[in-house]
């Protein structure tokens, strides 16, 4: 593998980028994800998970049982928002990030 080899094909993250964040202290899949977007594409790390564990192992010498799994969230596989919302009889209003910002004279406090 040379450093340009793609590890996360969804987000096109190369080996070089992953090695770099490991050098900066990343130790888990989720560390690497937060720093590079690795595993944040449509497959949600289903393909690159084992490759990334391999890179962590090679770079740090950590054993595979010391490298935790990435966090797996709902929905388990991609689903249309339209499908997800069907059958919902009551919609609660969505709280926007802006609701949390306190304004004073039209400006953020």
């Amino acid at each position, binding site marked *: *593998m*040379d450093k*340009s*080899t*793609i*590890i996360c*094909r969804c987000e096109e993250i190369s*080996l070089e980028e992953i090695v770099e964040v490991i050098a900066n202290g990343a130790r*888990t899949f*989720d560390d690497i994800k937060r720093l590079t977007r690795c595993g944040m594409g449509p497959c949600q790390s*289903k*393909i*690159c998970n*084992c*490759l990334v*564990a391999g890179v962590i192992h090679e770079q740090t010498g950590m054993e*595979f*049982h010391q490298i*935790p*799994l990435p*966090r*797996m*969230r*709902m*929905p*388990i*596989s991609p*689903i249309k928002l339209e*499908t*997800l919302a*069907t*059958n919902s*009889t009551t919609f609660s209003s969505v709280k926007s990030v802006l609701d949390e910002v306190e304004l004073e004279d039209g400006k953020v406090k």
Partner: protein
Amino acid sequence: MNAVETDVLIIGAGPAGLAAAFETASRGLQVTLVDESKSMGGQLVQQTQVLSSLPSIYQPMCGFELAAHLSRQLEDFEIRYLLGHRVIGFYKDGSVGITDEKNVFPLRAKKTIVATGASENAIAFPKWTLPGVMTIGAAQTLMNRNFVQPGKNAVIVGSSDFAMDVALQLSKVGVRIRGIVEKNTGVKANGTEKVEQVRKIGIPILLNSSIKEARGIGAVSEVDIQQGEDIWTEKVDLVCVDGGRSPILDIFYQLGCSFGHQEELGGWVPQYNNDFQTDCENVFLAGNAAGISTQGALLVTGMLAGINVCAALGAISKEAVEEGKQSLWKELESIETRSNLKVWQARNQHIEKFAHPVLKDQFIS
């Protein structure tokens, strides 16, 4: 919206799920079987190779024949089939969200058997993302399920028993295999007969070798193979990678199950006891999700999970449970010690470790 109720929810209609469905439905339990595919049998459907090491009650047969047999034996029972449906996750109240791609509806089960199988692992090399590079299982699916020849000239990376099976099948449909590339010093496959067959039809097995690089514009057109100091180029339009398989864990993760690492079982595997029950009381597991093994063993684990769910729901007498468990464990031992002793040892070690799981909340970040 009120949740649909069921005694037993089985997630995955592959060999293990179907075996578990038979054990539970035949004892009068109300069974719901969900699978994202519209057909039953899971990966068996495209397996035209003869499956060795099936349980003693079975004649040797091909994967698709076994799939048909397992589906047929469910015909007499009233099972709620949710084929072409996906589990999308779990709600706070413990019900499961299932979608038919138009709606999402909740379902509540007394017991759940997770038989989600395994996924194939990738092998990375420069330009491995080019079209034409696929897993060995994908090549088999294209060929046997979709009747599409996946390429004309191929290399296979990895030398497992499955890779040997697919190499023979690809050759039969006219794909020229330029080589089987294995990074280790020996062939990984246990079935010496198959390896012999592969050699006999002139497929070179290259040990100590790897793919250095693939090239192509829009699709793979050549690969550099490295063996020791030698590097040469093969013109290919198909690269099949066999990086082994790992259990599919998303559903266990969502359910809050804990995991243990067993290299021989495919890496991270949910913790379970010898009743195939996870650390979540109502969640059982079966098949490759409980550790990668041979089809025969997958069936037996499905039967074991099924019987233990029957016991938990009082659908079977205590004597029958003990008797059934004992004979099935014997069967499992016989199959796995014959086909892959290391898997059997790893499974026992894994169950042994159930009492001492790795930090349960180590994934919370």
